[in-house]
């Protein structure tokens, strides 16, 4: 069956218990959700869990969804963001309970510069960002959301979104210049 029905129609079908419609929604949105979760969490296995949980919640909560000004993909990313934030918070609690000190991102990044390639430097910088800044960068720069959509997913105003983005980029520039100045020389 051609997968051309709008998301809203597929959601109505899912709400009526249509497995095939849920499969079509997964086919349409899963990879993008997985990419978002991967970049936000920096952990592939956890990202797959998040993506799977997002689709599961589509199935179980479809009857509660109503078409509105926000696209379905925005709603899906909002769910994914909440799951990612919960995962990150849980990780921090568990690491504290285990008596582990949080890693010093500056020291670790400086140590890795000698041994790893440029992609690891970039990933490390992104991982070191506060959760909301990382999510803002991921939504706007990598996932391609417009500012209004990204702000809605994050639950902030557009002004606040721009502040998150600017701070994130400033932080990244500072970290990367400290370890790889040749790449950011003006």
């Amino acid at each position: 069956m051609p997968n051309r029905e709008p998301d809203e129609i597929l959601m109505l079908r899912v709400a009526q218990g249509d497995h095939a419609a849920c499969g079509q929604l997964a086919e349409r949105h899963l990879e993008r959700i997985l990419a978002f979760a991967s970049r936000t969490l920096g952990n592939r296995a956890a990202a797959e869990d998040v993506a799977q949980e997002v689709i599961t919640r589509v199935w179980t909560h479809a009857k509660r969804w109503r078409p509105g000004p926000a696209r379905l993909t925005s709603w899906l990313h909002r769910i994914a963001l909440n799951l990612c934030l919960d995962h990150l918070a849980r990780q921090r609690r568990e690491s504290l309970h285990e008596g582990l000190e949080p890693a010093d991102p500056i020291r670790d990044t400086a140590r890795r510069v000698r041994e790893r390639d440029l992609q690891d430097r970039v990933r490390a910088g992104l991982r070191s960002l506060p959760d909301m800044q990382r999510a803002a960068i991921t939504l706007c720069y990598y996932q391609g959301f417009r500012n209004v959509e990204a702000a809605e997913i994050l639950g902030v105003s557009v002004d606040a979104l721009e502040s998150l983005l600017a701070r994130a980029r400033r932080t990244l520039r500072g970290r990367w210049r400290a370890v790889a100045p040749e790449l950011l020389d003006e």
Partner: protein
Amino acid sequence: MSNPPSAGRSAAQGAMTLERLLALLDAYGAGPERWPSDEREAALALLAESPDARARRDVAARLDAMLDRVPAPPQAPDLLRAFASVGRGHPRRGNTRRWRMIAPALPLAAATVLAWQFSGGPPPAPPSLSITELGAYTMPTDVLLIPPGVDLSGPAPTLGCAESIWGCPLPDLPVGRQSGAHPVRRSPA
């Protein structure tokens, strides 16, 4: 360095200013495709006229080049096949850690939802299930799961186990609770 208030979107109501253009570059980067669509044309016009703006654009472009070095995460064909197979009535893949993690926490009545996906048969009429019993709302941030336009004034679903073939006990839950902000008593496993 923080963006002064005048560089915010309120300044964008009028003509594009250098301050606003620099704020766009600082937030969204050098690529105009990421700038707000309603400001893009004016920003590009000013960019063509301002050496300062072009210098800032070049700085932003170097940072963008760093961000671009991280490739897109690999696809997950197994995961997609697992969900696609739901539509054809086949069971999910075996190594579903997520199912192992959440299944023990779900009351048996809620597990009938999961059983549909393994049965391959026509789905039964959707049961009335308490959202909290599904384990969906366990964190304060779950309140954000409520999508725009949802009818919150409608009757809250309740958990109905009385006729369940699983024989689960009726939980003692307040009606209408949809948030993890309040403690939820779960029925014993």
